[in-house]
Structures are given as structure tokens and as C-alpha cells.
């Protein structure tokens, strides 16, 4: 027979120094494993099928975003932010630009803000669609996943229409957006929202009351309010625990205080609550988009402050101020006033904050991003221990770890 000692690995000592009995088997889940969406490794200690310990190991997707930013001009950081949470890149663009605007102490024109709300909520929907689809797929509901991906495709076509790219959007600027609404965008948007609602109600019928699905996610990965707060949860996972904290309401930015929407909350914070919260947030985001599209004001999409955007070519060639602005913006870049700032926005996974330090020069002194899923991944051992190995899948799926955002 097989050499059992190879299968039943030697007694393990996990990071906390706890000694497991010899019957514990350690398996490496990740870095390359079907359930690991990004790249992360969970050294999981099993007693039979029961998880008795877990050591997360992150950092496989570390690209040095923060250090790289210190060696770039401010405006050059925007494309880097696309690669943070690559499922909802527009939210990162918006978050970073708003942080720099806060540093400058200016605001983008209202039309730009409403457009940002629409694009941000579209990104939030795509984020949630991807996450829910992945959870469902990994517990066997593959059809649900593909229907959601189909719906995501409708929205990504809108993103492509607006920004010219599906993922590497690079769309916001300091004090506005790269471009105005394309022709016919709002009517396309209305069409796509109707299609999206169809898919949502279809998927609702398929899965939300399915007995097998509920059995798989109910009471799996439950988390109390206190634990969630002490781990620093934000976003859908915190709301699933019953705490209605949403940056859009708690610290309203942009024009969210003019829009009417609700913050869905769960009760016990298990995977089923997380599923329902995300489903409801998609519906609320649809409402927000509809309201923002109705209220869309006329006006400029870019601030007219000097030294915030490249002057028009006729100014560059026509008058001395335009020429100097253009020269200084190209050679020295944007120069926000010295100071430090923290600007949180509600990302797909929770509070996504940018902490910026400026010395008044063309390069940032420090760019730090608070990745919402860092705290969630840190809680993986606390959420999984005591569950079965198959429960890693819905728990980790609902954490919605995005490697780019986690490892930066």
C-alpha cells in the first residue's frame, strides 16, 4: 500500500505555536487552486474533513503599487489604480481622483460627479455579480455563474463605451473626467438596466430559494458584530453582520446625499446573509443609477481651474498663460498643496481609502491604499475553523478576495 506517512504529514505546528495531534493532515490550498480566485495560499490543517487550523499566506500578487506611486507624477498613478480591484476599476479611479481633489480642496463639476456616480455604481454591480457568480459556481451552480457573467457583459460594454476599455479604464482626472457622456449613452444604459433586471429576477428564481444552496451557505462562516468590528470589516460582510455602515451614507461624498437608496443589512453574518446583502445592493445600485441618470445636469465635465487639466490647444498656441500651464503640467506635473489627506470611498468590498501625503511637489511623498479585503482575508482562519473543508469555498468566495487590491 501507499506510504501513509507521506499522506498523513508529520505533526504540524502552526503559526500560533499550537501543537496538533498526529491525526491532523495539512493540505495546501493554493496558490494555484480552483477555489483561490486571486493568488493566495491557505495552509489548512484538517482533522478528517474538519478544519482545525488555517494559515493564510498573502503577497503573491505584490506589485509595489505604493512604492511605484512615489516615483510617479500624480496623474500617472491613475492607470495604476485600475489594477487594484480589477473587478471594479472605475471605483478605484474615482477614489484616487477624489482624494487628490480633496488635497487640492476643489470639487469636480456636478455633471462629472453624477457621471462618476453612474459609472461607480456600474462597477459596484459588476463587482457583486462576479463575486456572487463565483460563489455559486464553486458550490456547483455553474449556470447561475454564466448568467451573471452574461449580465456583467452588458455592463462592461457600457464601460467600454464610456472609457474605451473594459478593464484598464484610466477614466477620471483631477477635477473631472477624461470625457463627457458619449452620444446615446443614457438610452443604452436604460436598455442594459432592463436586461440586467431580467437576469436578476431569473437568477433569483433559480437560486435564492434553492434548498441545496441554502443548506450550503446558511450558518456557514457566521460572524458576530463584535468580531467583525474587531477585525475591521467593512462593506457587504460587515453589513451582513447587521451593522449598516456604508461610506456612501456614513460620510457622504460626491452627490450620494442627494440620492435616495437603502443600506441592506443581514443578521447573523453567514454566507447566506452576505449573498442576500450583495443581491440587494445590486438592486439598490440600479436605483441609484436610474436616479442619477434622471437628475443628470448640463454643464462641463471638467473643472476650469488652472493647472488642473491640460489647456486647450488654442490656448497653448494662442496665449502665454496657456503655454506656461502646458509646459509646467508636462514637466512638473500636478502639484497639490502640501498636506496629508485620507479619503474613503465605498468600494466593491468595503471601505477603500486613499491616504495621500504631499509636500507640494510633483511626486507624492506617500500613497497608501486601505484595501477592504485585507481585513476580510485576515479573518479567514476565524471564519473557517470548525467548518468542513468544503465550506472554505462559499466562505472564501463571499470574502471576494481580489489579489490586486489585497497585495497592491
Amino acid at each position, binding site marked *: 500500500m*501507499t506510504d501513509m506517512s507521506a*499522506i498523513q504529514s508529520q505533526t504540524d505546528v502552526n503559526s500560533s505555536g499550537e501543537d496538533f495531534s498526529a491525526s491532523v493532515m495539512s493540505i495546501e490550498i493554493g496558490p494555484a487552486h480552483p477555489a483561490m480566485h486571486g493568488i493566495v495560499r491557505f495552509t489548512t490543517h484538517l482533522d478528517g474533513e474538519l478544519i482545525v487550523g488555517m494559515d493564510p499566506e498573502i503577497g503573491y500578487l505584490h506589485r509595489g503599487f505604493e512604492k511605484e506611486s512615489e516615483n510617479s507624477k500624480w496623474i500617472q498613478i491613475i492607470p495604476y489604480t485600475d489594477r487594484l480591484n480589477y473587478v471594479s476599476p472605475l471605483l478605484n479611479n474615482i477614489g484616487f481622483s477624489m482624494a487628490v481633489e480633496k488635497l487640492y480642496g476643489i470639487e469636480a463639476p456636478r455633471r462629472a460627479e453624477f457621471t462618476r456616480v453612474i459609472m461607480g455604481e456600474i462597477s459596484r454591480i459588476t463587482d457583486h455579480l462576479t463575486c456572487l457568480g463565483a460563489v455559486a459556481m464553486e458550490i456547483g451552480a455553474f449556470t447561475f455563474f454564466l448568467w451573471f457573467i452574461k449580465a456583467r457583459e452588458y455592463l462592461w460594454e457600457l464601460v467600454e463605451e464610456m472609457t474605451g476599455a473594459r478593464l484598464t479604464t484610466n477614466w477620471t482626472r483631477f477635477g473631472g473626467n477624461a470625457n463627457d457622456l458619449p452620444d446615446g449613452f443614457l438610452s443604452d444604459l436604460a436598455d442594459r438596466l432592463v436586461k440586467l433586471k431580467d437576469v436578476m429576477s431569473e437568477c433569483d428564481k433559480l437560486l435564492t430559494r434553492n434548498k441545496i444552496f441554502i443548506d450550503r451557505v446558511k450558518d456557514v462562516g457566521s460572524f458576530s458584530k463584535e468580531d467583525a468590528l474587531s477585525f475591521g470589516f467593512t462593506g457587504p460582510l460587515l453589513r451582513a453582520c447587521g451593522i449598516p455602515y456604508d461610506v456612501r451614507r456614513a460620510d457622504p461624498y460626491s452627490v450620494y446625499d442627494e440620492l435616495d437608496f437603502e443600506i441592506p443589512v443581514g443578521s447573523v453574518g453567514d454566507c447566506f446573509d452576505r449573498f442576500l446583502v450583495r443581491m440587494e445592493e445590486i438592486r439598490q445600485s440600479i436605483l441609484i443609477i436610474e436616479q442619477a441618470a434622471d437628475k443628470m445636469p448640463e454643464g462641463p465635465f471638467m473643472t476650469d481651474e488652472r493647472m488642473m487639466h491640460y489647456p486647450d490647444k488654442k490656448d497653448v498656441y494662442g496665449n502665454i498663460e496657456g503655454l506656461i500651464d502646458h509646459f509646467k503640467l508636462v514637466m512638473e506635473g500636478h502639484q497639490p498643496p502640501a498636506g496629508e489627506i485620507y479619503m474613503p470611498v465605498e468600494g466593491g468590498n468595503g471601505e477603500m481609502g486613499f491616504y495621500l501625503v504631499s509636500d507640494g511637489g510633483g511626486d507624492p511623498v506617500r500613497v497608501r491604499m486601505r484595501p477592504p479585503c485585507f481585513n476580510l482575508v485576515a479573518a479567514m482562519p476565524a471564519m473557517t475553523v470548525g467548518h468542513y473543508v468544503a465550506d472554505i469555498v462559499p466562505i472564501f468566495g463571499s470574502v471576494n478576495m481580489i489579489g490586486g487590491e489585497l497585495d497592491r
Partner: protein
Amino acid sequence: MLLEIIMIPAVLAIIKIMVIILLFAMPLGTVLTLMERKWSAMIQDRVGPNRANIGGFTGHGVLHLAADGLKSMFKEDTMPKGADGFLYLIAPFFGLIAGVATFAIIPLAGPIGNFTFQVTDIEPGLLFIFAITSLSVYGAVLAGTSSNSKFALLGGTRASAQMISYEVFMGLALMGVFMVYGTTRVSGIVDGQNEYWFGNLIPMWGVFTQPLGFVLFFTALIAETKRAPFDAPEGESEIVAGYFLEYSGMRWSAFMLAEYVALVGVASLITTLFFGGYHVPWLHLWENAPQWIVTILQLLKFSIFTVFFCWFQIQLRWTVPKFRFDQTMALGWKKLLPLSLANMIVTAFVILAFG
């Protein structure tokens, strides 16, 4: 001369085996691999396989069957370091053999004189099926333990526990059928379903005499063949592929083929035991029907029902999520076991009371 040789029972049995396996079970199993991909594509708003072509001819994806087969044959047959060589090499074939052996006792059509459309009509009948399905456990267990992989070991453990448990309910669920038709012999059960209630109104199919038994047996069979929603042993999202994780090439294909042959086996067993087998209902009303037409109709009826239940299993797989392993076991021991015992007792009382 040739006819005499053919009519020797042993030779005849071998010919029947060849015909049933090579013309019915294997082709249907192979075509189902394609049909599953096409059907699932339809469910999921996709196109499905359509790229393999010879000079532009794709045949709606039929050529993918050849492409898949060729690919598997030319792939390297790998063996992980530290694997138990002999067991590792033979494990894939247990499931395949067990799946194919199921067809030995299934009649495809009614007998013509002495000639039966069945390899053998042995007295134990369905007990043979139980014995054979027990064998297929070895495939999963040996593959799991001999691969020297922890994921495979977990999959093999799950598979063995699940298959051994569900055999119990499979047997108990069928007790009612044995009682109603008074035999375990397959031809007896099939002929018993050719009787009618209320004159010629309702055929005495197993699904009408044993509705609960049908549901229980179907559930147990799907679990026994490890199809979704009972595919925790494969658990592709948490234990990657379970017990056949380390296999490649044709040995991997053997596992896949075994799954699809078992799919056909399940469908034909259900047809035989609960849907009148090959008997076309109300056909006896047509007096003096030519024998050849009757046989063709019977073959057709059997095939249509079999394909329908294959489709049903595929539809099931792409519609529902899968159970967690402990939920599979809980469903078996806490729900199916009491239900099948109750079904057996109620059936016994009804038979005692009404004859």
C-alpha cells in the same frame, strides 16, 4: 453451419455482449459527453463546442468526440511520485467494468421465440446489480489511496463512504418493487409491468405501483454514480478533482467514460424497473401485430425512455448546486433510510391486505 455456431448459448451471449456494449452502451455514453456539453450550453446561453472541423465541416460539434479521444490517446500517461504503481494503473477500469456489466441483465426488447434481447436472465437478477455496483467502489477507493495525493485521498474517502451508504438505500428502495412483482428476476419484473389496472386504463408500471420507491431509487442511483448534485467526491472546487486528480490521458478518460456509461446504466435501469421496460403500453390492443414491428417499437420505446432519463440527469446537474459531503450522508441516513423502510413496510401491509 454458421447459424448453428451462433446459436450456441455461450457464443450467443458473447455476441449479445458485444452488440449491447459496442452498439448501445458505449456509443450512447460517448455521445452523451457531447450532448451534455451542448445541452448545458443551451441552458447557459452559450454556443457549446463547435470548433473542431475537417475542411470546414463541424457537424455541430460531433468532431469534438474524435478530437477528445485522439487527444486523450496521445497524452502522456503520468504517474505521481510515490504512487502505488499496480493499484494506480488498474483503478480506472473498475468503474468502467462495473458500469458496462450493468447492461448484462437489461432486456432491450421482448423475446422472439427462444432469442432474447438480453445477455442473461439470471435468477438473482437485480441482486447482481447490487453486487456489481459494490465493485465500482474499489475504483474510486484505489484511485484515491494509490495516487499519493492528499486531495485524492480525501476524494477517495468521500467516495467510498458515499457509495457504500447509498447501496443500502438502493437495495431497500427496491424491496417494494420485489414485493409487488414477486420476483428479483428482471424479465419477471418487466412482464409484471405489462398488466393493467381498471381494464386497460393504466399500465402497472413501477412508477405507479411504487412512486416513493421510484424517487428513492433514482436518488440513490444518482448518488451511487456520484453525479451532481451528489458529486462531493469529485468536489472540483475544494479538492480539485477528488480521487482521479492525478490521472491523465486515457486513464482519465476511463473515469469519464465510466461516469457516462453509468449515466446510461442508471437511465436504462430506471426505465426497466419503473417504466415498463421495453413494453409499449396498450400495444396488446393491436391484435395480430407483426412481430418485427413490435420488436422495433419496443426497442424504440426503451431507447426513448433511456435517453429521456439521461437528459433528466444532465438537466439536474446544470440546474442545482451540489451537496456538501456531510449533507449527502445526512440525507441518506436520516431521510432516505427511514423513508425506504417505511415504503417497504407500507407496501408489505398493502399487499397483505389487498393481495
